[in-house]
């Protein structure tokens, strides 16, 4: 039987992040490359190749950045909530770092979604903004991200910050179905989903191709920046430990 000394337990704690560091070094160039390739291809197709919409002319091309960023905003919030839950239940050392590193990325995508939506709304609906269910719930999503970031930063003890922010992330999950179904539950200016109706999507296949490329590209971008931010968080943790050890010595 292995006798667990205190020192051993410490190294065990670092084992997972160390494995992650090795893994991340292998996949990093691939996700970064995939992101650049698919986004460039999506932009060329979406802005240059596919024909204008029969109703909206060229303004509909905003969709190729608006819809993927909306999906990313929701998806990354889901990742944040799940990893917060994993952090609570199993105390996995990487889980909270994943949630913490994801928050600014999700906030950026949500902001892009709102910003491009506003630029799309003005020529199509005649208004930059309207307080309807879809737009308001998306704004709430942005505030949930900002609240999470602020709460995490408000505590000196990172474990306490993770717990408080994690609770906020989990409570905020209620907003995700509200965003998703807001266009069906309430009257809204926002059009319903065009792409998720698998049996009869109301989008032309030539227009779906750049949309899919952009979604893959944004996913790969998320993976790329997440790896960078996670490595920075792991380095921070190591800096804290080294500082503590040198103060003690």
């Amino acid at each position: 039987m292995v006798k667990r000394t205190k020192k051993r337990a410490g190294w065990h704690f670092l084992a997972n992040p160390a494995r992650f560091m090795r893994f991340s070094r292998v996949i990093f160039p691939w996700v970064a490359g995939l992101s650049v390739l698919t986004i460039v291809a999506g932009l060329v197709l979406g802005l240059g190749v596919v024909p204008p919409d029969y109703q909206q002319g060229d303004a509909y091309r905003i969709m190729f950045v608006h819809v993927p960023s909306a999906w990313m905003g929701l998806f990354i919030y889901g990742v944040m909530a799940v990893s917060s839950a994993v952090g609570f239940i199993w105390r996995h050392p990487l889980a909270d770092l994943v949630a913490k590193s994801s928050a600014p990325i999700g906030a950026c995508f949500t902001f892009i979604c709102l910003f491009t939506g506003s630029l799309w709304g003005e020529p199509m609906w005649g208004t930059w903004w309207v307080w309807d269910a879809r737009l308001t719930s998306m704004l709430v999503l942005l505030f949930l991200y900002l609240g999470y970031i602020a709460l995490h930063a408000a505590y000196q003890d990172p474990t306490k910050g993770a717990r408080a922010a994690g609770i906020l992330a989990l409570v905020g999950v209620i907003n995700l179905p509200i965003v998703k179904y807001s266009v069906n539950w309430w009257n809204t200016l926002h059009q319903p989903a065009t792409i998720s109706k698998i049996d009869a999507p109301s989008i032309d296949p030539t227009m779906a191709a750049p949309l899919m490329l952009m979604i893959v590209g944004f996913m790969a971008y998320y993976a790329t920046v997440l790896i960078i931010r996670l490595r920075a968080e792991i380095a921070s943790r190591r800096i804290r430990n080294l500082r503590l050890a040198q103060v003690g010595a």
Partner: protein
Amino acid sequence: MSFFSMGGYAAYVWPSFGAAAAVLFALFYFSRRTLKAREAEMRALEARRDELQATAESQGNSQ
């Protein structure tokens, strides 16, 4: 050229893509800058720790 005029919607289409590109590039840039700074700090602390250990060992040998 219709590519740049976007059928009259240039004022809406290009700022959308421009803003998205600016936000995503900025996030990438600042994330990377933070990582480089932290890694440098971490290496400096590790070097100092090794130095302290080496001094402690050499002092232990001389006694």
